[in-house]
C-alpha cells in the first residue's frame, strides 16, 4: 500500500466515526421534525403548501452556505445565552453542522410523507372510518403502514443527501470525511481527495442499500427484511462510531487553522510544542474560514491560531491606513486586547503578504515590475485571485490606490490559482509571499510603490480565556521571531509540490529543526 493511502486509512476511524455520528444525528432529528409535519400537512391542505414551499426553499440554499450561515447565528445565540443565563455553547463544529444537515434532510422525508399519506386510497380511508377507528387509530393502523414504503424511499434519499453534504461540515470545524477532501484539495494530495470521495460514497451506498432492504420489507410486508435492514444500520453505525469513545477525553487545548498548507503546518508545530509541554491531548480544528477563525478564537472555541497582521488590521479592526509594519503590530496588540481580550503573543518572524505575481516571461514582455506598471497594462490582462481576495478590504485599498481596470477577474482555490498562472488562464495572481511555489516557479513579485498593501506578519493569537495560561504561553513563546520566510516557503513547498510531498505534520517537524538552529 502506498504511504499516502496508508496515512489516509490511519485517519479513517476518527473521520468516519464523526461522519456517521453527524449523519445519524441529523437524520434522526430530521425524522422527528418532518414526520409530524408531514402528518399535519397531509391533514390540512392549507398548511401543506407553505410547509412544502419552505422546505423546498431551504433545499435551494447551497449546502455549504447553509452550513456557513449557522455559525454566526449560533454565535449570536451563544453570546445571548452567556449574557442571560451565564452559559454559552460551542457555535463551531458539531452544532451548526447538525442543524444545517437536519434542515437538509427534512424535504425528502416531508415530501414523501405527504405524498404517501395523501396517496392512501379514499375507499380504504372510508373503510377505516366505517369500521369505527378513531383518527389516531386510522393513522397508526392504516395510513402510516400504507404510506411506509413511500416514506422509506424519502428517508433513503435524505440519508444519501445527508451523508454527501456532511463532507461540507469540515469548514465550520466539524471533523468528517470532508477533511480528506478539503485538506487534499489544499495540499494537492489527490490520493486524499479521492479517498474522501470514495469513503463517503461507500458509506452512502451502504446506508442506501440497508434502508432499501427496510423499504422492500415494508412494501412486501416481509418482517425479516425490515429487521435485517434495521439491524445492519444499527450495527454498522455502532461499529463506525465506536472509535469516538476513545476520543471522548476533553482536549487540553484546541489549535485552530485556516484552510491552507501554511496554517496546517503551523498548527501542527504549535500542537507538537504543547504536547511536549505536557498537555495531555491537543485537538485541531482545521479548514476554518478566514473570518470564522478569529471569531472562534475570541469566543474561546479555539485556544490559539496563527493569523496575519494585515488581515486583522483591515478585516477585524476595519482600518484602511498603513502606518508601517511595527506600528500595525503595536496597534493590533493593544486594540485586540482592549476590544476582545485576545492576546497577540508575537510575530513568528516572517510575512505572508498578498503579493501580485507574474510569470517572468510575461512580466518582461509587458515591461511590468510594479503595481503602477500593472495598472497601465491591466486592460489587456486577467487577474487571478483566491476566493476571498476580491471581497477583502485589501483589494479595495490596492484598487483605490492604482485604479486597475482588468480585462477579467477570476477566482480560484489557491492551488488552482498557481495552475491558472502557469497555464496562461491568468496573467497576474494575488499570490502569498511565503508560498513555496513563488520560488519554485521563479515568479516575479511586483513592487508596491504606494504602500497600499499592509504588512502581513504571521502572529500567534491566544484566546481571552487562555490569556493567563502560562503553560500555553511558555510553550509557544520560543516560536516568536524563530521562523524565517525562506524556512516557511520551504516547508510550504514540501507540502504543496507534486512530487515527494510530505504531510503537514512531517513538514512541521522539519520546520521545527531548522528554526531551532537560529
Amino acid at each position: 500500500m502506498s504511504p499516502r493511502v496508508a496515512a489516509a486509512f490511519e485517519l479513517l476511524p476518527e473521520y468516519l466515526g464523526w461522519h456517521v455520528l453527524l449523519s445519524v444525528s441529523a437524520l434522526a432529528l430530521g425524522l422527528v421534525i418532518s414526520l409530524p409535519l408531514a402528518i399535519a400537512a397531509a391533514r390540512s391542505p392549507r398548511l401543506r403548501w407553505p410547509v412544502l414551499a419552505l422546505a423546498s426553499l431551504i433545499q435551494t440554499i447551497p449546502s455549504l452556505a447553509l452550513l456557513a450561515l449557522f455559525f454566526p447565528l449560533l454565535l449570536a445565540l451563544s453570546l445571548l445565552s452567556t449574557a442571560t443565563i451565564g452559559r454559552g455553547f460551542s457555535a463551531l463544529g458539531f452544532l451548526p453542522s447538525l442543524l444545517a444537515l437536519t434542515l437538509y434532510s427534512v424535504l425528502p422525508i416531508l415530501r414523501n410523507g405527504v405524498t404517501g399519506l395523501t396517496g392512501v386510497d379514499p375507499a380504504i380511508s372510508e373503510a377505516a372510518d366505517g369500521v369505527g377507528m378513531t383518527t389516531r387509530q386510522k393513522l397508526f393502523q392504516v395510513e402510516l403502514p400504507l404510506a411506509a414504503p413511500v416514506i422509506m424511499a424519502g428517508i433513503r434519499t435524505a440519508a444519501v443527501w445527508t451523508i454527501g453534504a456532511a463532507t461540507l461540515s469540515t469548514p465550520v470545524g466539524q471533523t468528517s470525511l470532508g477533511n480528506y477532501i478539503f485538506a487534499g484539495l489544499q495540499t494537492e494530495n489527490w490520493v486524499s481527495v479521492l479517498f474522501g470521495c470514495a469513503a463517503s460514497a461507500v458509506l452512502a451506498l451502504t446506508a442506501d442499500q440497508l434502508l432499501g432492504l427496510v423499504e422492500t420489507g415494508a412494501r412486501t410486508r416481509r418482517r425479516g427484511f425490515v429487521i435485517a435492514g434495521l439491524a445492519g444500520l444499527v450495527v454498522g453505525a455502532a461499529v463506525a462510531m465506536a472509535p469516538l469513545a476513545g476520543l471522548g477525553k476533553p482536549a487540553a487545548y484546541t489549535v485552530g487553522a485556516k484552510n491552507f498548507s501554511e496554517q496546517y503546518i503551523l498548527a501542527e508545530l504549535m500542537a507538537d510544542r504543547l504536547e511536549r509541554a505536557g498537555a495531555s491531548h491537543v485537538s485541531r480544528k482545521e479548514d476554518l474560514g478566514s473570518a470564522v477563525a478569529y471569531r472562534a478564537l475570541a469566543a474561546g472555541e479555539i485556544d490559539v491560531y496563527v493569523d496575519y497582521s494585515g488581515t486583522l488590521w483591515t478585516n477585524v479592526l476595519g482600518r484602511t491606513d498603513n502606518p508601517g509594519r511595527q506600528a500595525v503590530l503595536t496597534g493590533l496588540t493593544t486594540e485586540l486586547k482592549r476590544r476582545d481580550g485576545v492576546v497577540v503573543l508575537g510575530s513568528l518572524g516572517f510575512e505572508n503578504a498578498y503579493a501580485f505575481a507574474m510569470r517572468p516571461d510575461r512580466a518582461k514582455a509587458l515591461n511590468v515590475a510594479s503595481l503602477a506598471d500593472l495598472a497601465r497594462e491591466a486592460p489587456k490582462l486577467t487577474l487571478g485571485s483566491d476566493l476571498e481576495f476580491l471581497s477583502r478590504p485589501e483589494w479595495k485599498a490596492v484598487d483605490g490606490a492604482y485604479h486597475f481596470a482588468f480585462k477579467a477577474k477570476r477566482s480560484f482555490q489557491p492551488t488552482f490559482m498557481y495552475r491558472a498562472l502557469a497555464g496562461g488562464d491568468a496573467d497576474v495572481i494575488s499570490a502569498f509571499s511565503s508560498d513555496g511555489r513563488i520560488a519554485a516557479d521563479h515568479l516575479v513579485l511586483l513592487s508596491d510603490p504606494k504602500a497600499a498593501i499592509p504588512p502581513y506578519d504571521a502572529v500567534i493569537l491566544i484566546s481571552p480565556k487562555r490569556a493567563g495560561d502560562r503553560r500555553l504561553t511558555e510553550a509557544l513563546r520560543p516560536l516568536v521571531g524563530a521562523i524565517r520566510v525562506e524556512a516557511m516557503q520551504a516547508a510550504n513547498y514540501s507540502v504543496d509540490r507534486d512530487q515527494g510531498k510530505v504531510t503537514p505534520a512531517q513538514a512541521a517537524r522539519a520546520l521545527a529543526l531548522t528554526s531551532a538552529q537560529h
Partner: protein
Amino acid sequence: MAAPAIQLTDVSKRYGATAALDSVSLSVGEGEFVALVGGSGSGKTTLLKTINRLNPPDAGQVAVAGEDVAGQPPHALRRRIGYVFQEVGLFPHLSVAENIAVTPKLLGWDAARIAERVATLLDLVALPREVAARAPAALSGGQRQRVGVARALAAEPKLMLMDEPFGALDPITRDALGADYRALHERLGLTTVMVTHDMAEAVLLADRVVVLDNGRILADGTPADLLAHTTDPAVRALLEAPKRQAERLRERLGA
C-alpha cells in the same frame, strides 16, 4: 312500543347551492330490509351516511335505536353499525382474517373469541377457511365483497348499512351474493338499509323500497304497494322497467 331502529327527522344537507337532502323524514323498524333507490344525485348515499355520521347533516335529527347519533362519539357509533360499500375498502396490508377482526380488536375482544368469530363469519359468508391467511389482493371480486360483508358483521351489529354493495360484481356473483345476504339478514335478525340504483335488485331483496329524487322521498312502500298505488310517473317508470324486462326475458327465452 320499542323505538324504531332508525329515525330521521327533517334531515337536510346542502352542498353549496344544491340540496342533497331536503328535509327528509324516515322511520325504519327493527328487522326491516329497506332499499333506497334513485338516480345519481338523488341523495340516497348522502342519506345513508348521515346514519353512521360519515356525512353528518346540516339540520334535522338522526336517531339509531332511539339515541341521537349527534351526541355519540362517531367511532363508538360505527363499531355498532355494519358498513359495506361498493369499493369494499379491504385493508391491503392486512390478511383476510385480520381484516375481519378489525372491529372486534378495536372493541378489545380477546384473541380466542376473535379467532372463533373469524371462523364463524367465513362459514357464514360461504368462504373457505383457508382464505383467512391470504392477502385481499389474492381474492376475486366476489370473494372480496364477501370478506367486506364478514368484516361489517364481525362485531355482531344489529344494523347494516350497505352502499351499492354488489354494484361492481358480475351478474352471477351479484345474484348469488344478494341471495346469500338476504338469507343472513333473516337468520341474524338484522335491520338493513341498502342503497342501490337498480330497482330490480331492490325489488328482489328488500321488503320496502324508498324512492329518492332531488333530495326528497318520492315514494315509500312494499314493491307491490308502490306498483299498485303510485301515481307519480317517474316512480311508475322506475318500477315498470324491471317488470317489462322480466316479461321480455321470459318471451325471448321461451320459458
